[in-house]
């Protein structure tokens, strides 16, 4: 295979419920074990708590809600993934609740496809693409639109 024509994208593969998702490593800050969370009364259900990441107070987002993925109870493999994400040009540190973190992998960018218009399982505006590996489909969420929507929806809560 001709290496030079391939554009590789580096992803961290996470699991939300039963669905595997891929987040570009550029977003990643760190991966933490579950910890005590502080509930924020009156907040949107998808961002209902805060955690202390070495002195910084970071909101925890649950992507399973906007992506429409059923939420299982926390298990031994649950992890918190801390990311940098831009909300309308503001760099925000946020955490994502995940049910497992699998691996870091390189994916040929050309294999990532648009969500077919017939697929209705996931909200199209929150998904930037999808690809298939040996174990099935991996979803590439659009973190910018998801977090922008979360920020906007809390604004009306």
């Amino acid at each position, binding site marked *: 295979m001709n290496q030079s024509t391939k554009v590789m994208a580096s992803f961290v593969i996470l699991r939300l419920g039963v669905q595997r998702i891929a987040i570009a490593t550029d977003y990643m800050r760190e991966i933490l074990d579950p910890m005590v969370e502080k509930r924020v009364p009156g907040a949107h259900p998808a961002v209902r708590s805060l955690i202390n990441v070495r002195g910084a*107070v970071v909101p925890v987002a649950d992507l399973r809600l906007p992506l429409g993925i059923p939420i299982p109870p926390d298990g031994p493999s649950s992890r918190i993934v801390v990311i940098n994400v831009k909300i309308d040009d503001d760099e925000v540190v946020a955490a994502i609740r995940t049910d497992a973190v699998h691996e870091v992998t390189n994916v040929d960018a050309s294999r990532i496809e648009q969500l077919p218009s017939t697929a209705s399982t996931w909200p199209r505006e929150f998904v930037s693409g999808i690809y298939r590996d040996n174990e099935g489909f991996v979803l590439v969420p659009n973190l910018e639109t998801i977090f922008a929507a*979360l920020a906007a929806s809390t*604004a009306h809560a």
Partner: protein
Amino acid sequence: MSDDILAVFNEELAELIETLESGLLSLDSNPDDIEIVNSVFRALHTIKGTGAMFGFTELASFIHKFETAFDVIRAGDAHITPDIIRLSLEARDQIPSLVEKQPDPYGDRERILQELANAISLSGDEDAATAPVIAEAMPEEDEMPADNAADQILRFRLTERALALGSRPAIIFEDLRKLGGHTIKADLSEVPNLDGLDPGISYVKWEMGIPPVTADDLENAFMFHDVDFDLVAATAETPVVEEKLTAATSPSTPEAPVAAKPVAEPAPKREKAEPAGQGAGESASSLRVSAAKLDTMLDQVGELVIAEARLAELAKQSLDPSLLSLSENITRLTAGLRSSTMNMRMLPFRSIVGRFRRLIHDTSAKLNKPVEFVVLGEDTELDKTMIEKLVDPLVHILRNSLDHGLETSDERGKTDKPATGTITLSAEHSGSEVLVRIRDDGRGLNTQRIRAKAVERGLISDDAQLSDAVIHGLIFQPGFSTTDVVSDLSGRGVGMDVVKRTIDSLRGSIEVDSHEGIGTDITLRLPLTLAIVDGVLIEVGGEVYTLPMASVQEILDLPHSDDGKQEFLDVRGLFVPLLHLRDVFKSSGPEAVQPVVIVVGAGTNKAGLVVDRIIGTSQTVIKQMSRLHSEVKIISGATLLGDGTIALILDVMHLSKLGKAKADALARENAA
């Protein structure tokens, strides 16, 4: 020139311009205050000096002419007139473009200077009969009273080798004269006999009356001379040999018959005496530090406070007495460090008031509405970040007050109001809030017109029953403007909604109190957003929250009641609405046996917060909530406790508003 140096110059220049401008504006109301004239002159002189030093020759020569005009006033040959003030302000406005080295295609600068010179000679002619004419070159001693209360005595002498190094007393005298020095006396007591005289040494000491000047000014005058000097407040001194200024320039008067003692006693080197004049000494001992450095320091102190809390927690658990005492010591030191760091970030309200004076001055001239601008509470200290963000909203409000609020003199004449309107700007601390108030004695808001406009714009429905206060609040809605004529000042309906947005972003609120024909009173309530505050830790449904100590009015036990949940509490005759935080927070934890009521808020916005338990107090480092939680109004931020857990900080201002809404609802219910 490196950018760093240029930045220093620009910063200094901005300060000098500010001094200049505020001086000019206060001269407007006190035209005879020679102190202010002096300070304006000094500002000009320094601008000229630094400008030339940094290579802004155009600026220096412009300011030189500007300064010359003020020199005439300072000498008493001319008097301040409104025209001079206006032209001086115009000249001041030329400074930025001169610094940017912009061309002057229309010859504005030359025109301003010419007009200024004309205005000055005109004012001089008018007053020539009454004004004491003081020769520019040499003030006569008799005419300059030495015992002027504000004056100080400057004693100075050249150091031993100064003459050898080329110092010339005549040059020093000239510089001191520019500072306003007068009545010089020479002390010849140390001049030796002829055979003991060393021509390279100056034996004469001088004593001079001088108006209050800063130590910096004296340092400047003596910059190139090796001089020992000493500044004292004027007292009745034993007279020494008096000499004319001209005669005194000869340092070694040979015929002086006094004791032959060489100048041996080591005079204190360049000792700076604090000038007695208030205000003049203010700048003497300050240090310029970039805001970014202060912010970094504040962050570090914040981390320290958290670490200290953790240490205190561990020490308590260890029961080790020496560790406990050390931890207590550190707690005390941290608290001290915290408050001094916070203090550094505080700026007096005064620091932004200058530009408002200018705004009022110009706008009032433009609209031809004479106005008296009163500022109260200039010393009220506000957080630096807050004070900067307040400038724009205040500009909008003040402009509106002048443009829409105040009537013209003619209109005022038809009522029993004085022809000159009054706008009052005040700032004060109230509990955990800062109140900034803008009051005018103008025509007040036209409730009917605002209402009609709001209906027309679809902001309210035609039949809405609204109190006056609610209707007045509508002027802060986007796109709202009742003035049909759009002037270049206001009337576009932008502005007031920007004011509201800015104040909202500072987590503040706006209150309008207006009475038709009497005036309008706009109050900005702002939190003292300090990055660290003293907090009261409370527990609600098993969760820990904190609220600023300064907002707590009193703490009471919730009285037992048999008929369900109490909604109001009678606190010594005052009905305080109760907010059960368990309900507000939708808490699910175990209920408390004896809930506690914390009365918070200020003025009429009081509320009783019902909490399960009070845990104690803590120093609270405020961490801002992220954008994802920006609209959770009841929470103003988060903080870390000693054990690393997060406690949310309650937004007392918002909670007391909820309480007020509850009280208002009850009042309406009772009325119905």
